[in-house]
């Protein structure tokens, strides 16, 4: 009956394996990435006897992990997407909570600033009121810089996070490669190295939560991992590295590169999924547009406000200077450039966009690409005549063509191409620095220019009902105005004859009360500027008005007309091609960031649901259920005890046999 002993022993060995595996399952119940293992028992080959095949016990054929590669892939994809949305939301919600915050956001400061101008309008000579306006201007500057600092901080954190993620990815790749080696070695022995496989899967899961990867399993058991547009992160036992590089135009703009021996490949735009995808998408969709839009508001505000301010006269009777610092266009030159490019903001900057532009040239052909929508303006330079003069034939993105000799105006920018050289490449960033360089230039409250340089006087002997109203000055040079008199002459066609500085100008403004009352007129005075006004009523022959200088020693300090014009800018549609005011544009970014944050939150919740389902499905196969293991423990303990009884029985039989021969 030696068979019985062996059979019993085979049971003991097999059940010990099962119990050990159950113990392994129990102790790894909370180990991340662990797949429940199962022992497969098979009957041993029976022994043939005359009466048939006698069973000879059990043996452990294999220990396998409970694993479904389809469910695993689904989990990995869901995890990658959820991690992308989480990271995106994590960053976006920080900007979201700041934008509409009344103590940090721009909106409140804009309102306070413009209200303070109205207070000055109500009491133009009050130094305290002017001081308040300066303080509010400073507060506005602070808001811009606070928000800009916040965005800078976010840029820094984005970059740090990118660096961390790249390090993680590289580390994970190395580990996966080394596990690949171990698995290939271990698989050679015919059985699967379950725990190594679990570890590797877990590392790939972690990698997928950093960035979207695709995998392919090799016949030797190794897994190749690909990233981006097919770059091989892990190839068998070898791994490659990702890296970060600064973009040439901006040290703080990092690109993600795949390191190769010859040259690094920029794969930033292929970075989807995972933390990396979330960060890159946040940077492209929220952070950079926010920085540029804030810059756009800063540039538009300082340009339009300065323009109006320099058309005014301050409390000392001097021409107004720039109220805010004049913004300048940021241009990044390629290091290989040999020429130079000059770009200024156009007088009418309502066309300014938040996009960056790239200008390339071969010397005669120029291409200006707007990066936001990749539309191109092409320019062909030609030189002709004696002396030679240069002209530019421009083709706009919409197909319209024009020719100009001087600067080229594109989207509120004046681009001077004359000093560029063949092969040059420039990146024009009109709004990037707007918010950070926004600052108050005026420091003396007396320097706020809220008067207008022209004042009108009606002759005391006017006998008609004529009126001259709504005086306005533009393109003010600061030079004194020689008296401009308008004398009505009723000889048909009736008109006001214009005399400038006592000398007849030879020109006149046609005015017929019945048809022209209320119409506005413009008189350009050489060396001074353009004066516009409206004429009303019925004048009698010889009735006159005098437009005289309102600056210098004779300045009328109670004048508030420019203050009204300045405060009017608050609601004037000076942006987005004349369709939006400052607040509107700010509202657009608040709404945009709000919508994107909201959609990240909503999609994130939905994705979390998918992820939970994927986890549940995966765990249904691979997860450890302690009750089940407890039951197994009981069951196989009993089986083990039973097998021991078999051994005992075999001994008893053997003893009985021995006893029979005693």
């Amino acid at each position: 009956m030696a068979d019985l002993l062996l059979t019993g022993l085979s049971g003991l060995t097999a059940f010990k394996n099962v119990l050990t595996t159950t113990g392994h399952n129990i102790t790894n119940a909370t180990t991340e990435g662990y797949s429940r293992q199962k022992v497969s028992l098979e009957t041993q080959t029976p022994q043939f006897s005359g009466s048939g095949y006698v069973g000879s016990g059990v043996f452990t054929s294999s220990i396998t992990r409970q694993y479904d590669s389809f469910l695993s892939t689904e989990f990995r994809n869901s995890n990658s997407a959820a991690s992308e949305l989480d990271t995106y939301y994590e960053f976006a919600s920080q900007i979201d909570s700041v934008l509409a915050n009344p103590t940090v956001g721009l909106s409140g400061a804009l309102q306070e600033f413009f209200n303070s101008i109205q207070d000055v309008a109500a009491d133009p000579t009050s130094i305290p009121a002017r001081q308040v306006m300066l303080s509010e201007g400073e507060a506005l500057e602070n808001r811009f810089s606070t928000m800009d600092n916040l965005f800078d901080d976010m840029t820094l954190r984005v970059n740090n996070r990118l660096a961390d993620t790249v390090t993680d990815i590289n580390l994970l790749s190395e580990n996966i490669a080394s596990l690949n080696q171990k698995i290939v070695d271990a698989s050679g022995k015919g059985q699967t190295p379950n725990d190594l496989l679990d570890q590797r899967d877990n590392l790939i899961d972690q990698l997928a939560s950093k960035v979207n990867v695709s995998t392919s399993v090799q016949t030797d058991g190794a897994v190749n991992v690909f990233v981006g547009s097919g770059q091989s992160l892990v190839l068998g036992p070898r791994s490659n590295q990702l890296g970060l590089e600064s973009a040439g135009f901006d040290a703080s703009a990092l690109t993600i590169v795949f390191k190769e021996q010859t040259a690094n490949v920029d794969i930033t735009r292929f970075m989807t999924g995972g933390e990396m995808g979330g960060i890159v998408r946040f940077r492209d969709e929220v952070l950079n547009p926010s920085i540029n839009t804030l810059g756009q508001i800063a540039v538009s505000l300082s340009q339009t406000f300065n323009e109006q301010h320099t058309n005014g006269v301050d409390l000392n009777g001097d021409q107004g200077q720039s109220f805010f610092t004049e913004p300048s266009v940021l241009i990044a030159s390629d290091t290989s450039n040999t020429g130079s490019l000059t770009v200024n903001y156009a007088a009418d900057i309502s066309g300014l966009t938040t996009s960056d532009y790239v200008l390339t040239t071969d010397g005669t052909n120029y291409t200006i690409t707007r990066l936001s929508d990749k539309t191109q303006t092409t320019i062909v330079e030609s030189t002709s005549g004696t002396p030679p003069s240069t002209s530019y034939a421009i083709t706009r993105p919409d197909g319209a063509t024009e020719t100009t000799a001087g600067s080229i105006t594109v989207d509120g920018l004046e681009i001077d191409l004359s000093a560029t050289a063949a092969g040059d490449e420039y990146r024009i960033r009109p709004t990037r620095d707007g918010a950070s360089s926004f600052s108050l230039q005026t420091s003396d409250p007396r320097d706020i220019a809220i008067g207008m340089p022209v004042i009108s006087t009606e002759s005391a002997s006017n006998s008609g009902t004529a009126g001259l109203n709504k005086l306005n000055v533009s393109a003010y040079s600061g030079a004194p105005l020689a008296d401009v008199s308008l004398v009505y002459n009723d000889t048909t066609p009736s008109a006001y004859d214009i005399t400038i500085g006592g000398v007849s100008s030879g020109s006149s403004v046609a005015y017929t009360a019945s048809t022209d009352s209320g119409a506005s007129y413009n008189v350009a005075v050489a060396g001074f500027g353009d004066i516009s006004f409206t004429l009303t009523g019925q004048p009698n022959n010889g009735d006159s008005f005098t437009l005289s200088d309102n600056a210098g020693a004779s300045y009328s300090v109670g004048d508030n007309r420019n203050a009204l014009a300045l405060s009017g800018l608050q609601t004037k549609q000076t942006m987005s091609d004349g369709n939006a005011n400052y607040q509107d544009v700010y509202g657009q970014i608040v709404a945009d960031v709000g919508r994107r944050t909201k959609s990240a939150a909503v999609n994130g919740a939905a994705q979390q649901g998918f992820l939970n389902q994927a986890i549940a499905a995966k765990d249904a196969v691979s997860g450890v259920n302690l009750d089940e293991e407890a039951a197994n423990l009981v069951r196989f303990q009993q089986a083990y005890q039973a097998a021991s009884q078999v051994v005992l029985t075999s001994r008893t039989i053997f003893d009985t046999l021995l006893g029979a021969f005693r």
Partner: protein
Amino acid sequence: MNRMSTSLAHQQGINSILQQQTKVNNTQQQISLGKRILNPSDDPAGSVQLLDLNQALSRLEQFQANNDYAVNRLSTSESTLQSVTSNLQRVRELAVQGFNDVNTPTDKKSIAEEMYQRLDEILALANTKDANGDYLYAGFKTQTKPFTGTSASGLYTYQGDQSQRFLEIGEDRSLADGNSGAEVFFNLQDKNGNPEDIFSTLYALANDLSSNKAPAEEMAFTINGGLTDTETLTINGLTYEFDNNGSVGSTVVDGVTVPNIIVDISDIPGVPAIPLTSDEIATNLAAAIGNTDVTVSVTGNELQLLAGAEGEGGLSFTDGTTAGDITVTEQISIPLYDHLDQIDTALGRILDVRSQIGARLNALDSQDETNQDFILSLEQTKSQIADIDIAEAISRFNFQIVSLQAAQQAYVKVQNLSLFNLL
């Protein structure tokens, strides 16, 4: 059979507790701040609406501040002009009273003295400053004293300009917060269209009174002859017609047809016979005029006319005869009537300005109401968008707390269920 891994069961229990906690926390924040929108992402469209509403509200509040400011300035102006009006009226009374012949030259001097005082007072009123120390009637030159001159020199000048300051009191609505001194006191015109100002007028009046000028207008004219039938002269509204045949025309005065007064130019009245001499015609004319309040005296062919000592009639003379028939030899205007005219013009101007101010104050009042209505309705809209419905939030909060408790209890119960506990 569906298996459930123990760690997943555990994790799901924890997850549901965490979820409930987040909800409770969010609702708690909403309740404690009273706000429905904590971040723009809670309601992007609503957040932008809130920004716009806040801007509109902030502008309206500024308009209200401007409105108050304009009301202050205009009210100051109104009460100043009220004082100016009563001063002018007093001067007018003094003028009428002072030129009465019963006054001795000394009396007139002392009445003139009061006029000077009134003039100084009106000058001081014209130089009134508002609460901010700005001159009310200086146009834009608010820091320059607008009217200079004294009753010693009698030379008055305006140092301000003709500008009016406007303030925004509503969207697309601005309104002048005052009137320039030129408009109120200075750029007046006398009946002949010559520039005048209140101060010079009063000064001249007081001077004339003080120097005992006669209050009347006087003139003289000679009749040269050559007068023909139906030619007329109009003196103080009465028409005198030279006549040689007894048939007389008429003149419409104030809508009433009045027959002309006959002055015979032939020796037999009503019959075109021998013409009279110029001296005789002058005598006839003087006789006809003698029935009115115009004093007339005749010397040969010259008539001297003197307007009545009292009343406001003045002396008007219109020559309707052929040129050369009559020559005016002397015309002296002693300007009581002119003065009174000009005081009336000034009073009329100030009344105009005051009614403008009244109209503006009314406009400000109604704009104030409009703005307040707007503010109220904007606040309501804002509240609907931003504020939380407390009743709804509290009940949601309670429900969430109950759910959290349920999740916690369920977790504890489920975690106790382990087969190991029973082994």
